[in-house]
């Protein structure tokens, strides 16, 4: 396990109280908390060297540009990419996926082509493809899931076919916690000449990630789920692909020269970064990466496997001794196949009620459809409650989760037939 005592000292928010109780933050899949190093990096930029990037011939602008581009280098190494020109900054993972859908997608997807997705995709890796399919006449196909929320690889072999142009799959499910066999899916896609986009919004923050090991063509993720500030997303793609893609948004920074009726696009990566970027938050994202590097992503993963094993044992024990069949956990039961994201339901109790009672005890979880409405329909529930872990969470906090759950069951259990 990580030294959470030391780590927690870096996160000022973790010492606050909620409703008179110590905050237990278990909503990391929605967004992580930020260490003081990240918070300081933002104010340091505004206090000392606030200036626009890539423009001014003055010291502040040079310092800002250097710091901004340093984050790009850090991210390049973090995901083991070859070239920092392959790293595009966007507003979030959603914007990164939309960039692919509307630049690469419009240039490459035609009527009759197939885009293969999974039913566990977040709306942000579903709706852009629905929009593209509507516009181009392409078809969306969905892989099948096993009982315990894993992709059925037999269906992948079947559905990824001669008309498949793109496969878009999440690295890790934000509902089940499932870690998907991306490299295997990549092989199937590439054998058919299709490209693979990986939604890394949940995976990259929690699993050591190498674009070479994933063998993907696009990777999208958000810095706010990995200790960074909101407002920064990353799109990585292979250089040849990015070079062939038309620009998505036009404006300043993305051009090398402009005439009244035409322009020449800038080189990568700026070709896709139109307008003044989110300088402060990109710089602070560098501090987040540095923080994660100091801990080491392998250690992050091991910490979460430990917490997950512990949570899985408590889920099993609690349903045996406390809640009977009422406590239903979704997703794989093997900690090596999943991340620290636990979706569950408690009998007939609405997830919002669970969330409320837990919040009253200081425990912050997410309750609802988690931007996965089609998946909730498939599970036949209006939503789930979801607890998700990160580097600062402890076994004691997992204990508190279950204490709070027992309280919820006490207050709200035994609902008469409705």
């Amino acid at each position: 396990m990580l030294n959470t005592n030391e780590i927690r000292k870096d996160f000022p928010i973790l010492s606050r109280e909620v409703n008179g109780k110590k905050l237990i933050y278990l909503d990391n899949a929605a967004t992580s908390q930020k260490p003081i190093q990240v918070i300081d990096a933002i104010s340091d930029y505004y206090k000392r060297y606030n200036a626009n990037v890539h423009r001014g011939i003055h010291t502040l602008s040079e310092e800002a540009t250097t710091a901004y581009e340093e984050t790009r280098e850090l991210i390049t190494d973090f995901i083991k990419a070859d070239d920092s020109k392959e790293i595009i900054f966007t507003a979030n993972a959603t914007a990164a996926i939309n960039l692919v859908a509307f630049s690469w997608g419009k240039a490459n997807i035609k009527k009759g082509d197939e885009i293969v997705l999974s039913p566990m995709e977040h709306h942000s890796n579903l709706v852009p493809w629905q929009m593209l399919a509507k516009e181009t006449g392409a078809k969306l196909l969905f892989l099948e899931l096993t009982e315990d929320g894993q992709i059925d690889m037999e269906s992948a072999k079947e559905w990824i076919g001669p008309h498949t142009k793109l496969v878009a799959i999440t690295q890790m499910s934000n509902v089940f916690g499932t870690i998907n066999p991306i490299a295997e899916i990549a092989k199937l896609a590439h054998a058919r000449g299709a490209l693979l986009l990986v939604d890394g919004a949940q995976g990259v923050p929690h699993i050591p990630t190498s674009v070479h090991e994933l063998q993907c063509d696009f990777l999208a993720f958000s810095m706010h789920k990995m200790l960074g500030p909101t407002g920064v997303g990353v799109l990585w793609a292979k250089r040849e692909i990015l070079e062939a893609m038309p620009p998505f948004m036009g404006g300043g920074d993305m051009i090398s020269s402009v005439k009244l009726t035409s322009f020449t696009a800038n080189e990568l990566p700026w070709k896709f970064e139109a307008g003044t970027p989110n300088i402060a938050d990109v710089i602070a994202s560098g501090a987040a990466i540095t923080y994660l590097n100091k801990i080491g992503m392998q250690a992050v993963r091991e910490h979460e496997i430990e917490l997950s094993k512990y949570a899985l044992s408590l889920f099993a024990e609690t349903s045996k001794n406390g809640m009977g069949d009422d406590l239903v956990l979704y997703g794989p039961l093997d900690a090596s196949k999943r991340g620290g994201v636990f979706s569950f339901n408690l009998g007939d109790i609405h997830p919002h009620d669970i969330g409320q009672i837990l919040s009253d005890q200081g425990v912050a979880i997410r309750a609802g459809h988690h931007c996965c409405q089609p998946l909730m329909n498939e599970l036949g529930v209006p939503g789930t409650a979801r607890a998700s872990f990160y580097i600062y969470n402890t076994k004691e906090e997992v204990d508190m989760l279950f204490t709070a759950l027992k309280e919820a069951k006490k207050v709200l259990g035994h609902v008469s037939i409705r």
Partner: protein
Amino acid sequence: MSLSDELYRETILDHYHHPRNRGVIEKPSTLVEGVNPLCGDELTLYLQVEDSKIKDIKLTAKGCSINTASGSMMTDAVLGQSIAEAQKIIDSFKHMMLESREKDVSLPENMEELEALQGVKKYPVRIKCAILPWNTLTQAIKNVSANNSEKSTKVEMS
């Protein structure tokens, strides 16, 4: 008092655990479905009106505690009332929930129980859960008043 106690105070829990007027009416004057897509609350309201009076009202619902309790209390409050009186009760309730967010409001004596739902005002995301049954009833009354031959509509909270 902890927030838990306040939000889930006894009245609400009692109605949640033992919802009143549960069920269906075989041949209602009108039937309306209400849904709150954001949280998945769903209910079906059956209304029987005779001589401008609510002769019978029944609900089947699948939702959270607030939604269930609010619907249950609503049926209690309007059963046997004239349409005009029921409309007044709806208006007072919605005023309490939506227009005076800041302070507590006291309701007329026959509606006192509904004051228990004021605790919900502190949780803006859940106000809709409390309101859904009432909007559904409003639609049902509209159907009856308009002598709507279709007699089946749907209310969706946005």
